[in-house]
């Protein structure tokens, strides 16, 4: 039962969806403040490489090293996001071009590979990695075992994050202010909210989440450093925010859906009737396109649309 295709794909879909979920939550926070950050792929890769570096260098017990590595990855992601934030909030640069620049700067052919090479991280397995935290007997329960109890701490932490972000956006004063900044910065400004401050803070937090998402690859899924190991996950995360209608709980559903499609090619390998691996591997990308088309109908956009000020700089004198 626990080895059946369905259970394996669901359980692994949750594992493979977790980096998407972290990155999407971060991007959601940034976009809710009105900052579109297309640099997610780059921030994830830098988070992945720095998190992996930390775990190789910290000579402490395993849980401590892993927590430290996640902190380092979050800081690295936030540092990358700070570049974008400075350019688009203070210097009023075009958000789309600046985000693309961040992906080029930090991405496969940029800083992440530079660091991975320079710190000599390739071709060695992680010294510590995130593993299932529940006892073996729990994991052997039919169906529920592998899906609910076979996951690493990062998965359970991501569930807490989803709940926290959802409550933050709907139940706290600061979260409501944030939404005001994203919908109508001029009105928020008139209310006395520090628009630039909110945008900086949430872009940085978004970067930190992306960094953690990257570290999920290098410390749990792969778990080693390979140049470009995210393979477009950052872009899928951006799409995920769109078809989750900027809502954290829907991000969770979407992330696991795409996680399952990412894992499917590996699961199918052992079957003789499997399609060519390239076909299965292209599924997450094709599904992203299809899902985007589905949610871009006029009715859906009017009802659950993007934050109104998304992508627009706010300048008090020019509103």
């Amino acid at each position, binding site marked *: 039962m626990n080895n059946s295709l369905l259970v394996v794909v669901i359980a692994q879909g949750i594992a493979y969806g977790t980096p998407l979920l972290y990155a999407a939550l971060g991007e959601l926070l940034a976009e809710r403040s009105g900052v579109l950050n*297309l640099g997610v792929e780059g921030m994830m890769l830098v988070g992945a490489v720095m998190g992996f570096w930390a775990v190789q260098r910290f000579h402490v017990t395993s849980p401590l090293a892993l927590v430290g590595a996640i902190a380092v990855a979050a800081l690295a992601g936030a540092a990358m996001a700070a*570049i974008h934030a*400075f*350019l688009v909030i203070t*210097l*009023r*640069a*075009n958000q*789309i*071009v*600046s985000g*693309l*620049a*961040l*992906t*080029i*700067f*930090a*991405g*496969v*052919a*940029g*800083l*992440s*590979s*530079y*660091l*991975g*090479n*320079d710190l000599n991280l390739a071709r060695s397995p992680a010294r510590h990695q995130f593993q299932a935290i529940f006892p073996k007997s729990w994991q052997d329960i039919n169906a529920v075992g592998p899906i609910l109890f076979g996951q690493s701490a990062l998965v359970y932490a991501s569930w807490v994050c989803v709940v926290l972000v959802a409550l933050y956006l709907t139940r706290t004063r600061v979260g409501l202010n944030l939404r005001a900044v994203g919908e109508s910065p001029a009105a928020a400004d008139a209310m006395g909210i520090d628009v630039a401050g909110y945008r900086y803070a949430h872009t940085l937090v978004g970067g930190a989440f992306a960094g953690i998402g990257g570290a999920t690859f290098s410390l749990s899924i792969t778990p080693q450093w390979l140049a470009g190991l995210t*393979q*477009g996950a950052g*872009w*899928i995360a*951006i*799409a995920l925010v*769109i078809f989750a209608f900027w809502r954290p709980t829907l991000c969770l559903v979407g992330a696991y859906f795409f996680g399952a499609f990412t894992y499917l090619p590996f699961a199918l390998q052992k079957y003789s009737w499997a399609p*060519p*691996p*390239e*076909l299965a*591997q*292209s599924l997450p*990308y*094709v599904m*992203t*396109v299809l899902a*985007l*088309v589905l949610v*871009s*109908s*006029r009715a859906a*956009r009017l009802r659950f649309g993007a934050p109104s000020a998304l992508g627009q700089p706010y300048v008090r*004198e*020019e509103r």
Partner: protein
Amino acid sequence: MRIERRLAQPRWLMLVVPLLSLVVAFVVATVILLATHHPPLHSFRRLFDAAFLANGALTETVVSATPLAFTGLAAAVAFRMNLFNIGAEGQLYAGAITGATMGLLLGGAPSPVTIAVMILAGSAGGALLAAIPGVLRAFFSTNEIITSLMLNYVMALVIDYLIFDSHSYLRETKGFNASVFPQGKQLPDAATWSSWTIHGLVLPLGFLVAIGVAVGLWFLYSRTRFGFEVQVIGDSARAGRYAGMRTRRKILAVMLLSGAVAGLGGASQDGDFRHQLDPRGLTQANYGYTGIVVAALARYNPFAVVVVAFLLGGLQNAGYTLQGADFPNGLVGVLQGLILFCVLGGELFVRYRIRFERRPSTAAPATQ
């Protein structure tokens, strides 16, 4: 300190600010190199040497610049309309596939015919792929950034499938080598694009075609009604619609044009340089993404794209030449990103002026 909009943008600033931005980018790169224990001056000199000065370096730089000119033009065409086609990477693969297919099919035809058909096929291939995000954007308002980008990954898998995982028409299946290491079928001699040598500098046909395309695009955007309408829709789609312009058609047309230019770059890869469908070479070069940097640095001006493509081609070429030795891997992308950041940030100083003035000692009363 106050930032206020300039009423007039002085011409000298438009030259000085980008140059200063370049200087800042290299200063930041110096800091990164120092922090990671690389000698910065040595690295930069080797970079410059390998890009422009060494024997045959210019020829190699043109080889790298040719695809960048195509992908840069492809991005510039679309970005001008605020249509963010970042699928030039995949569209270039598509053009390479269709171009190589036609080159192989026309085995015995005379060379000029083969070359012309390859150019057409490459453009058609790129345009066909770009039609997907184009149609989705025009008729379903689907975000073209994500859809065009997702297709890059799909096309990379398609090209892998054609050469590594199937017995396709494009794959070499005969010979000992072919069974050990899968590779593309060699194109016939008639499919080799001509090149001209001037004082030791080899100019491939593709580079000249790119210059021709740049001239054509400049004419299209500054001298025709189509170009004017595209600019208006780019600035304000609503204004365009009220003026009776057919917005959807324009979106689709610009997307097809952009894809065709990128696909042409793919055909040029087959005909000018690789002479087979070369999956590893194409997918590792990042031509499409670098093309975005080229277009943004050139401020979407087609002539500037060719010049910037040459400069960044030098950088990319140096990256290949120096790779492996003591030259830091990934430095090329870091430099490209830094230059783009600095030029983007620098634009503030062209559009705005910064005034330093002392704050009044008491809060001014709110009189209006």
